């Protein structure tokens, strides 16, 4: 049993719903208790869709449990097929149905339906949403394409050259309830078109069963969201010989690497290295003097594997931040995240326990948190500015305006969104100099238009003076007064450093002098 205040991912059947709802012509019969239809809201409210998700729930109740629940499943399969006439049917269980073991998938397969029926086995007590989405996408494609699998693989990603046509790639992975997939697809499509590369199938988002059957016609698969599409891409590679790109084009550097990778896999000449500089505004915005104060800002990053990795690179290589914490809840992505953290001199936090993430965040005492909807809670508690970079998300992260994360425009969006919560340069200087203002008080961020926004210092757990800190240490009045003079967004870190220094040097009282000693010690 795990105490969970917030969960980073939903159960695996929600991942399966994401696949079905992203596509058309695919219907999902879900054996689930009355009440699990709440998941419809994710699509109708968060994604603001004007259609119901293509899901028929059996919605059994306690009184059905005594009776024939298997018959109930069959009735719903029949009704769903008659009413919606899908091109393919997914059948699976939610966590409660898994306990009563009706084997709905097998039941449906025994009903002699005319369309392909995919039996989903998604273990709800050990796997989660993204796994469920990946597994569903994989099973669906495997089912639809297994008849087409060639006996000997002779796929050549450069065949387009002989055939005298433009190269063609599939974009795999974008889905509803993914982070900004809608606009990422548009941006990547634009990016590829600019380089004379056509997009064949985009899936699951917007694809139908016929589209999936066209997947083998492409020269290359672009795996935009490995959490959803990696297992499918590698199956297509193994069985059809279609290679796939591994770089996720989030950030200027990553977008460039992505283009280089795609070009070289397709046998094309790589684009000029200064393209990112010319086509995205992030590079110049970040170089311009106004951004100098961003240098060394301490950032804590947490999210799904792909977005956390991308953020780490952007922060350290493109924005000049110092990454002080990096982690992910995607266990499948633990290895690359660990490697990235190591390169930054950090140990990666691989966990899905919100409390542990919050503790690590507090420990790292960052000036900015880039995380998920959940990190907004902890950041609020700790009084740290925060921006959302990954799912889980809420309705405000499915905006009306064009807001990709990928490609050149994605980098522009990222620059604005990640810098916005930080205090602007001038205000930062003035608050450091004059701390007695009646309006611009400690922790106030006037550009956010309200008294302090996410970073209100009054409630900042990190920057507060320890009243009765750790038993062995004592802050003198003059030490505390000196600490208060440190700008609020680094105060937490200074406090920790000073206490660590005091402990190391065996000093029990912390005065203003200790604080300066520590400062010199750590800066040296």
């Amino acid at each position, binding site marked *: 049993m795990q105490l*969970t205040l917030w969960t980073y991912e939903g159960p695996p059947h929600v991942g399966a719903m994401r696949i079905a709802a992203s596509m058309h012509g695919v219907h999902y019969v879900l054996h689930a208790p*009355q009440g699990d239809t709440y998941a419809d809201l994710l699509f109708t409210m968060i994604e603001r869709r004007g259609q119901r998700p293509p899901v028929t729930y059996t919605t059994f109740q306690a009184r059905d449990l005594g009776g024939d629940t298997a018959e109930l499943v069959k009735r719903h399969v029949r009704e769903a097929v008659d009413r919606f006439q899908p091109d393919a049917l997914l059948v699976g269980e939610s966590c409660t149905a898994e306990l009563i073991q009706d084997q709905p998938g097998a039941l449906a397969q025994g009903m002699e339906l005319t369309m392909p029926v995919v039996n989903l086995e998604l273990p709800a007590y050990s796997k989660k949403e993204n796994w469920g989405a990946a597994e569903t996408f994989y099973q669906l494609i495997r089912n639809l394409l297994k008849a087409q699998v060639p006996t000997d693989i002779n796929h050549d990603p450069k065949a387009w050259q002989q055939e005298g046509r433009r190269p063609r790639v599939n974009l795999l992975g974008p889905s509803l309830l993914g982070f900004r997939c809608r606009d990422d697809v548009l941006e990547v499509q634009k990016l590829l078109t600019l380089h004379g590369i056509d997009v064949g199938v985009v899936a699951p988002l917007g694809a139908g069963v016929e589209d999936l059957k066209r997947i083998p016609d492409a020269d290359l698969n672009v795996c935009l969201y490995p959490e959803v599409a990696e297992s499918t891409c590698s199956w297509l590679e193994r069985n059809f010989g279609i290679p796939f790109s591994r770089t996720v084009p989030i950030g200027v550097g990553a977008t460039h690497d992505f283009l280089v990778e795609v070009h070289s896999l397709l046998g094309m000449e790589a684009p000029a290295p200064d393209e990112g500089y010319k086509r995205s505004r992030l590079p110049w915005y970040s170089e311009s003097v106004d951004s100098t104060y961003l240098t060394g800002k301490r950032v804590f990053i947490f999210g799904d594997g792909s977005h956390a990795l991308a953020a780490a690179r952007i922060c350290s290589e493109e924005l000049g931040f110092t990454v002080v914490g990096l982690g992910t809840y995607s266990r499948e992505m633990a290895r690359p995240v660990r490697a990235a953290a190591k390169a930054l001199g950090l140990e990666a936090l691989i966990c899905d326990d919100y409390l542990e993430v919050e503790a690590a965040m507090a420990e790292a005492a960052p000036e900015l948190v880039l995380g998920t909807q959940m990190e907004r809670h902890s950041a609020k508690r700790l009084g740290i500015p925060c921006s959302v970079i990954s799912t889980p998300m809420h309705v405000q992260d499915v905006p009306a305006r064009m807001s990709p994360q990928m490609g050149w425009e994605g980098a522009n969006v990222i620059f604005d969104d990640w810098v916005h919560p930080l205090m602007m340069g001038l205000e930062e200087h003035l608050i450091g100099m004059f701390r007695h203002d009646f309006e611009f008080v400690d922790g106030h961020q006037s550009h956010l238009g309200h008294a302090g926004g996410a970073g209100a210092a009054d409630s900042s757990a990190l920057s507060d003076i320890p009243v009765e800190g750790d038993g062995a240490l004592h802050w003198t009045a003059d030490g505390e007064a000196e600490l208060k003079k440190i700008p609020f967004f680094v105060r937490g870190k200074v406090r920790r450093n000073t206490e660590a220094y005091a402990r190391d040097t065996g000093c029990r009282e912390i005065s203003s002098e200790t604080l300066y000693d520590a400062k010199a010690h750590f800066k040296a």
Partner: protein
Amino acid sequence: MAGPTLLKESGPREVFCGLTSIVWLHRRMPDAFFLVVGSRTCAHLIQSAAGVMIFAEPRFGTAILSERDLAGLADAHDELDRVCKELLQRRPEIRTLFLVGSCPSEVIKLDLARAAERLNEELSGRVRVVNYSGSGIETTFTQGEDGALAALVPLLPASDERQLLLVGTLADAVEDRQMHLFKRMGIETIHSLPPRQSTDLPGVGAGTTVLLTQPFLTETARLLSNRGATVLTAPFPLGAEGSRRWMEAAADDFHLPNERVAAVLDPLMKRAESALARHRAVLEGKRIFLLPESQLELPLARFLQRECGMELVEVGTPYLNREQMAAELALLPDDVPVMEGQHVEQQLDRVRASQPDLVVCGMGLANPLEAEGIATKWSIELVFSPIHGIDQAGDLAELFSRPLHRRQLIRPGLHPSNPDTPVHA
């Protein structure tokens, strides 16, 4: 036979489970914590419903069952104890811990009542641990509140004091207002369940008269009457008429002089009438279809028909307690179909066929119906808004007139060529 036509339907349902009640109960009793014992689905449900609010200190959580818990139930009990202690350590200010059962915990028959007992012994006095079920297989949406309140009933101290007990969650301001009015009518002692602090439980006994503020409290009402209280049957306090009859039921029970009651209520009725007029102008003659969600549908339909002049196409309810609803049923027009239960697809067919002017439905259906060109009022808002009492009649009507009013405002601008044919999302 005169009166509404009572029908039943079964099939796929589109409703919340009782766990959802945590979303408002945690605000009503900020010193309580709601720990769901269930799966990741349950955790996901609550956070999807409440996650848009940002919490510095969450007041609900889920003990997620793992494969190991499913394999050995004995361990599950130890695990639950460990999780509860961990939680209480982190949040020492919690006074009442609700262990909330879910579908998975009910299906594997995890005995949460015993767990609550065991923890109560161990924590002796510091925290009270109670248990109820919010599972989808047993409860629909607001029935979760019934479960939570019913779990508190045995903890109420015995008291023979003559008192009025208002049962069911009310918005703070509405509660204050009702109490004030009852006092002016001459009822001295009034308490409410749930209280604002979970430790502040009212007494109950032979002198207690219970007035239900909400229609979904079947079990709570039963347990209160088992403890000697008199539970009144009256229309529910929605709309001016319903609220008046509801208050008069209490006044009767306390033998208050009619003139005094009228002196308090008459001016309110006058005011409500003028507050309603504006919305009645929008709603009158419009046809409304209510889908099952909260059990508030009957009183709402009665209010919309009698006070706002709407025509009822169908009134759905997830569950019909005929005894408690007798007064409401009596006020509904003859031959209106009252549908208990649901086959959501067939019900939607009926919605489409009857093309009502307004559909009251859950959020899973609201945007899709709007995209088909059918105006909706999403029903969850009704349990989150101060809608009870004579003074709130205008506000309640506004919740229904607003979507229609909004259409009038924006449709011509958004569909300049033909405002009647919507462009689908």
